[in-house]
């Protein structure tokens, strides 16, 4: 069954013409048709559009121009602009918005010959950790339908875990790729800030946002990372650096690798089952010759607080453009300003409004210094402490999420608990560090994610070691209980 194959194996069989691109695409569309009514991972599936991508990919293969991912299906988070295909950010305000241009990553996917199977669900404007804040639908965890796939890229994570696509793109502002990857038992990777162009990603927190891959293997994630990264002149914050290289992916070793286990992430607030899972995995890595030590970086304790000032502040400004004037929803009101107010009141959901208000407050005259400026100072401190730690360690290791997948609705009444779920993932966004989550075991049938963070621009080394970690944890693979 082609849906069970990894991207790498699919690409090889497509290139060898053992499979056709349309056939593979259709198999995935069929699986979406079967499962997604239950899972709710996709917001838009357009088979005709998918077949156009498929035909372009087949033409590449037939012309002998196939690359490592040509013909491989991919799901795309619905906050990445796709020319001619609705891009909603799971918000009423963009419910019928059809972009006229491709995000840089989407353009690169076309160039690589990937085949888009659909646009995936998310928390509205990527604000959330459970995908419950979507204005349109709830997404369910393939391992347990009563549970959340995490968020905000929950749709992409669920799609890959449920084999509706071997690859997906997500965006990560405080953990929105890695946390759902962890809860769904797959690989999620956030590259170094700037290695992947943000052009065409509908902005949430511009200084934190980064696009990255979901896959079921590290190798697949690395290949997708290679396809979408590299300098882009359309993004001023894009690093002047080539795409992430994968040729040395399999030539690393854990022997002598210096792993620093973040003490602050394995304390009381972490579910003991998660702590156990991570510790078992660390034992396996030690057995492979890794040099594992505990390290304490107290300043990461300020991560969540700092994040919930900086991200909403930037968001409050980034979301100002949704005013009903040029695109998206328009609700008439008294005068121009009245129209804008009515549009935004009707178009944004509760969580988005709450964050816009928090961010507006944090930037207001008289509060700017106490909140936004202070948060930036703490952020700089945290970055400095982490950079210092990378003098001693190749990777910093922690759980990805302090808890396994939680029940849908379980945490909606406790927004603070929901926000604490980002505790382990936020530091990577604060400092722009590359970080990856991969499955390291199970607790009561639910996946547990291991979080690996590397130094800035150390993406290649991080992927190389993650590949070794994946091999060292053979028991951490498995399929969710789906047909």
């Amino acid at each position, binding site marked *: 069954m082609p849906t069970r194959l990894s991207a790498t194996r699919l690409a090889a069989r497509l290139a060898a013409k053992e499979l056709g691109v349309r056939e593979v695409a259709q198999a995935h569309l069929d699986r979406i048709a079967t499962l997604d009514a239950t899972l709710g991972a996709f917001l838009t599936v357009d088979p005709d559009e998918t077949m156009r991508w498929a035909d372009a990919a087949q033409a590449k293969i037939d012309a002998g121009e196939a690359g490592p991912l040509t013909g491989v299906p991919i799901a795309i988070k619905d*906050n*990445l*602009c796709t020319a001619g295909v609705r*891009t909603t*950010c799971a918000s009423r305000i*963009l419910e019928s*918005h059809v*972009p*006229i*241009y491709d*995000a840089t990553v989407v353009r690169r996917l076309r160039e690589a010959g990937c085949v888009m199977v659909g646009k995936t669900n998310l928390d509205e404007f990527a604000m959330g950790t459970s995908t419950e804040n979507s204005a349109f639908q709830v997404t369910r965890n393939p391992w347990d339908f009563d549970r959340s796939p995490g968020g905000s890229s929950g749709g992409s994570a669920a799609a890959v875990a449920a084999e509706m696509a071997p690859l997906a793109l997500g965006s990560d502002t405080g953990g929105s790729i890695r946390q759902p990857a962890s809860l769904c038992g797959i690989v999620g990777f956030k590259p170094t800030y700037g290695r992947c162009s*943000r*052009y*065409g*990603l*509908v*902005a949430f*927190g*511009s*200084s934190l946002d980064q696009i990255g891959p979901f896959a079921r293997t590290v190798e697949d994630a690395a290949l997708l990372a290679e396809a979408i990264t590299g300098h882009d*002149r*359309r*993004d*001023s*914050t894009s690093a002047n650096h080539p795409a992430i290289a994968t040729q040395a992916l399999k030539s690393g070793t854990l022997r002598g690798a210096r792993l620093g286990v973040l003490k602050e992430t394995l304390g009381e607030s972490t579910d003991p089952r998660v702590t156990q899972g991570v510790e078992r995995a660390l034992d396996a890595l030690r057995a492979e010759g890794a040099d594992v030590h505990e390290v304490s970086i107290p300043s990461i304790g300020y991560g969540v607080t700092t994040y919930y000032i900086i991200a909403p*502040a*930037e968001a*409050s*400004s980034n*979301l*100002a*453009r*949704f*005013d009903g*004037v*040029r*695109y998206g929803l328009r609700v008439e009101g008294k005068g*121009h*300003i009245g129209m*804008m107010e009515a549009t935004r009141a009707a178009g944004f959901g509760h969580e988005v409004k709450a964050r816009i208000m928090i961010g*507006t407050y944090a*930037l*207001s*005259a008289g509060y*700017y210094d106490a909140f*936004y400026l202070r948060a930036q100072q703490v952020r700089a401190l945290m970055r400095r402490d982490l950079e210092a730690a990378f003098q001693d360690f190749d990777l910093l290791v922690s759980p990805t999420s302090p808890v396994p997948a939680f029940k849908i609705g379980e945490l909606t009444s406790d927004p603070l608990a929901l926000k604490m779920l980002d505790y382990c993932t936020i530091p990577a966004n604060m400092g722009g560090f590359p970080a990856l989550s991969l499955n390291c075991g199970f607790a009561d049938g639910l996946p547990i994610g291991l979080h690996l963070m590397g130094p800035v621009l150390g993406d290649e080394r991080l992927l190389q070691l993650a590949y070794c970690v994946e091999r060292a944890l053979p028991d951490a693979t498995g399929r969710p209980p789906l047909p």
Partner: protein
Amino acid sequence: MPEYVASVGMEVHAELMTRSKMFCRCPVAFGGEPNTRVCPVCLGMPGTLPVPNRRAIEMVLRTALALDCTIAMRSVFHRKNYFYPDLPKGYQVSQYGETNPLGYAGKLEIPASGGGYKRVGIRRVHLEEDTGKLMHLPAGGSGVDFNRAGVPLMEIVTDFPPDITTPDEAKEYLAQLRQILVYLEVCDGKMEEGSMRCEPNISIRPEGSETYGTKTELKNLNSFRSVQLGVQFEVRRQTAVLDHGQRVVQETRGWDENREASFPMRVKEAENDYRYFPDPDLVPMVFDEAYLESLRATLPELPLAKSRRYQEVMGLSAYDAGLLVADRDWAAYFESAVELGGDAKTVCNWMNGDYARYLNESGNTVGSGNVQPKQLVELTKLIEDGTISGKIAKDVFAEMFRTGHDPRTIVQSKGATQISDAGAIGEIVARVVGANPDVVAKYKSGQTSVAGFLIGRVMAESKGRANPQLVRDLVAKALDE
């Protein structure tokens, strides 16, 4: 009634003459069908990002250097957040802070009314983006034209407390600033097209008082004259308000060009909170000395310095020097003529006289004109060495302007060279004297003024070509024989 002193702060916005907009590649031009020069970036479409225009940054830096500003070696763009339909992103990219703008703490010198020069302090020179234009549609409702949205805009603000105290100084400041921007080729300075916009703020206070009065801000001024009249009107209006024991209201007032009066537009309520913060989509601009030095090297001599040099070194009047430097090409023409050996005063007289008149009449500019500096110098040399008379030179110049031919060619083809051959002139003199015995008789009877008549006749017969001095000498000689 007390005497009042006025204080005028000047806020000028200049659209930069870049080919493309500040953060996208859309072209910059005036007019055109609405929304024909737009793209996803300048429309603020979801997901788009800004890429700064390096040329625009360079233009602002060059202006800041020309205005003697301190340059911020590290400067960031801020977002100025507010809602308005003509603002595509819900924020304007601008620059905030005292020492963050590309240039700050500069100065501009203007000619003072009593002679000499006056220093006007410049507080900041910064870079931002223009907004679109909200328009009321003829069929009702409103629309927004985003052609102008994202055009690079330079803001130049004078110091507080203001140095400018009179309407004339306000006009002079603006004129000097415009000249500098045009000299630097950073702005076309067309106030009527809105590419240079001026919003003065005016307050008055009793003579000797330390506290500044309440300001009003003036908008819709689209010429130097309206700036001068507007400031004058506000000073008079505020004086009348205070003389009647009332208080000046802090407000923005519009200028009615036809009525030559200001009218209230909106009262300033609580200070708007724009929630400025560094734009996370743009990286800080960092400059080094070597780069600034390379920009400094591109600065032309500025108009006021030129004018001073023309007066002090070349001996021109302030008026003449002012006319010459008013246009960069005009001044360059003058300088190249002088360099080619032309006498400064003579060249200046020709330029500000016939040449300026012909250009004006024909609607041409010096750049498109036919007469090269070399040719003008040649003409002055022909007069100087006596080849042609000053009177003929005027006709020759007219011909030069029309055809672009060299003065020597024109003179030769017309046979217009001056006759300085005493023999040839003597023949004409003899003929004229012989034909006018009555006049000669009058002269002999002591009525010497009639010699002028004979001289005129000789000049006429020579078609103006005879050397006038020689004619006078020979006529006198013939009569005295």
